[in-house]
């Protein structure tokens, strides 16, 4: 039972999207680091105590972090010590879905929970979420079963432990979503934005639009979008795709001609030692905020374009190819 401490600094940053840059708000892992989209990944093992320390001296708004899928989230802070995280009200009106940090103060708020079950989960802003989540204040939590990294352990290289049909060779997390660049411009300048005008024009995997999705991790030209999503895999290997929809739209994830087995949804495995209810799919719709773990075992070589089957989202500025698309290269 280890202690996992993650610092999240809310910052203003710039995204490199095809043809232009777009301002965003993101989480950075330290005071000196750039904010990233998605935010820093929080990794833990079942049983770990996770502490998330949130700081903000960048945007003039209250900010908070929610942990959908985690239970018993506590908040530590002055003057009240530790208490259960809960919605906040002001004058009888809800102002935040969870405890928040006031803007403009050199202080922090600390959330803590025990990672009770394996899975892939979102964390995201719970304050003005219709603005802040779209602006980029989200990331993923990956909780692993104990022994996941011990070769002799039955849980070794499984997403959900032995007997769940989730053993994998390669793992790739793909956080999908969409951006409305006009909304980003407006909010970054402190102007208002009517969410009813929400009209996204960029569709992303791990914060990047195709063809940038194919660039390597930590590409120096994309300091705030450190994660690529292309995958190289050999036939017969088990590729675990952890697809998380952080956007406001539903997206339909097409496996590019590969057939996958959906082994978990929203962090719940579909298989127990008693019963296997996993299912095969070539295309899967993810609702806003949902996640699926899909294992693909390629049988033959080729180049497979994983993409949004909502084909109006595989464009950049109305031109195909672009948007929510990446590639899996299979060799024998």
């Amino acid at each position, binding site marked *: 039972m280890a202690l996992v401490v993650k610092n999240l600094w809310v910052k203003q940053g710039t995204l490199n999207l095809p043809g232009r840059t777009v301002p965003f708000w993101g989480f950075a892992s330290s005071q000196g680091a750039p904010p990233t989209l998605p935010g820093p990944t929080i990794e833990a093992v079942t049983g770990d105590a996770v502490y998330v320390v949130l700081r903000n001296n960048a945007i003039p708004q209250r900010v908070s972090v929610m942990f959908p899928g985690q239970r018993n989230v506590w908040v530590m802070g002055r003057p009240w010590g530790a208490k259960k995280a809960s919605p906040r009200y002001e004058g009888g009106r809800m102002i935040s879905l969870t405890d928040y940090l006031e803007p403009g103060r050199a202080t922090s708020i600390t959330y803590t929970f025990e990672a009770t079950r394996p899975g892939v989960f979102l964390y995201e802003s719970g304050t003005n979420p219709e603005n802040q989540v779209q602006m980029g204040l989200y990331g993923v939590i990956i909780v692993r079963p104990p022994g996941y990294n011990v070769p002799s352990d039955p849980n070794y290289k499984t997403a959900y432990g032995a007997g769940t049909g989730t053993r994998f060779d390669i793992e790739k997390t793909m956080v999908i979503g969409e951006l409305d660049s006009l909304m980003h411009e407006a909010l970054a300048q402190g102007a208002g934005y009517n969410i009813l005008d929400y*009209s996204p*024009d960029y569709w992303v995997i791990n914060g990047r639009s195709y*063809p940038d999705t194919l660039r390597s991790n930590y590409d120096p030209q994309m300091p705030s979008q450190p994660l690529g999503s292309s995958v190289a895999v050999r036939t017969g290997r088990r590729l675990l795709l952890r697809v998380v929809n952080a956007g406001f739209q*539903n997206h*339909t994830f*097409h496996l*590019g*001609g590969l*057939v996958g087995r959906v082994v978990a949804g929203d962090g719940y495995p579909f298989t127990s030692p008693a*019963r*296997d*209810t*996993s*299912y*095969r*799919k*070539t*295309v*899967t*719709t993810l609702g806003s905020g949902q996640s699926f773990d899909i294992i693909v075992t390629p*049988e*033959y*070589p*080729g*180049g497979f*374009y994983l993409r949004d*089957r*909502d*084909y*109006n989202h*595989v*464009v950049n500025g*109305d031109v*195909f*190819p672009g948007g929510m698309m990446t590639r899996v290269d299979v060799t024998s």
Partner: protein
Amino acid sequence: MPTVNLWAKDGYLSTPDGNSIYFWGFAPRPDGPAQIPGPHIVVRQGEPVTVNLVNTLASEPVSILFTGQSNVMAGGSPARPQYGPGGELVSFTNHAEPNGGMVSYSFTPTHPGTFLYESGTSPHKQALMGLHGALIVRPSDYDLAAPAYKTAYGFGTDTEFDREYVLITCEIDPDLHRAVERGEPYRISRFKPRYWTLNGRCAPDTMFPDNAPYLPCQPYGAMIMARPGEKVLLRYIGAGVENHPLHPHGQHTRVVAQDGRLLRNGPVDCSYKRFTVLVGAGQTYDQIYQWFGLGYTPENRIPTVLPNIRNLGVGEAGWTMWSGSPYLGLKGDIPVGVTSFNEAGEYYFMLHSHEEPQITNWGEFPGGMMTMIGIYPSLSPDVGTLAMG
């Protein structure tokens, strides 16, 4: 070895409100009209299939993706994404060049089921313009004459059926279609569908028969017909870019397979019942639908008390699908001035998108993604069949 020849062509489809809309579709003959959806391809598991595509469009290449099939070959080599001179992606698979180019695909279906075939070139335009269709793979042990082997997924998979119907959903934005027709910029960001189709037709055309001569480019009807208790295999396919919650009135369906893969793991039956099935873009859903009636049995032929005929709304529109009798197979009196479209004392139930703006034609109800299920006292075995080929 089955060989299917398809010609990518342009044409004009009709909508019930009198619109005529430019589209691209696949034609089964060089001298035949383009059709939306393309011809149903019905083949057998384990038997090699060849699909030859000739692209008669003048403006751009066209290709066909067979999602769910493995080891698809194009011109004798493994099918591969195609790139332009600058290395930019043009097609997800080998394509036929415009103005008569040709490509030949071949594959051997390893799994029975329902699949979507669609263009893999500029799919934001071509899939919506109509370049898509249904691929049906029969199980290797399929036998029309033996009920236990007339199945969607093979003997012993609990997918026996008496009749089968394919329903392909799509959306039409007439402004985008017109932009393609005129060679104007295609701005998918302005996508705003006005028509929602089942098998390329809007209601009430959905209820007209297959190959209706006045719908030359939309040959497939979407009327579901069966007798009480018969097992009806409904094959839903989402060909557009939106999701559509399809919903038959009065009875659940049992989803037995998705994307052409049986919902079963060894002995574990993972099929499930739904009142409404959200037909996701690019996805397929095979269901068994059985109508047993609301308490209907041969002993209890009328399980409810009907209001007086004068209190029914049958006369309002001047026509009705009510027979005048509550008894299946019987006809009764209809108020003067009302036309009954009821043929044989059958029952009608609606099947429609539960996103109800979509059961209009450009905002006018009724229309769009809607059809009827007719429960007949007797019905020819030829109704609700799909021929191989």
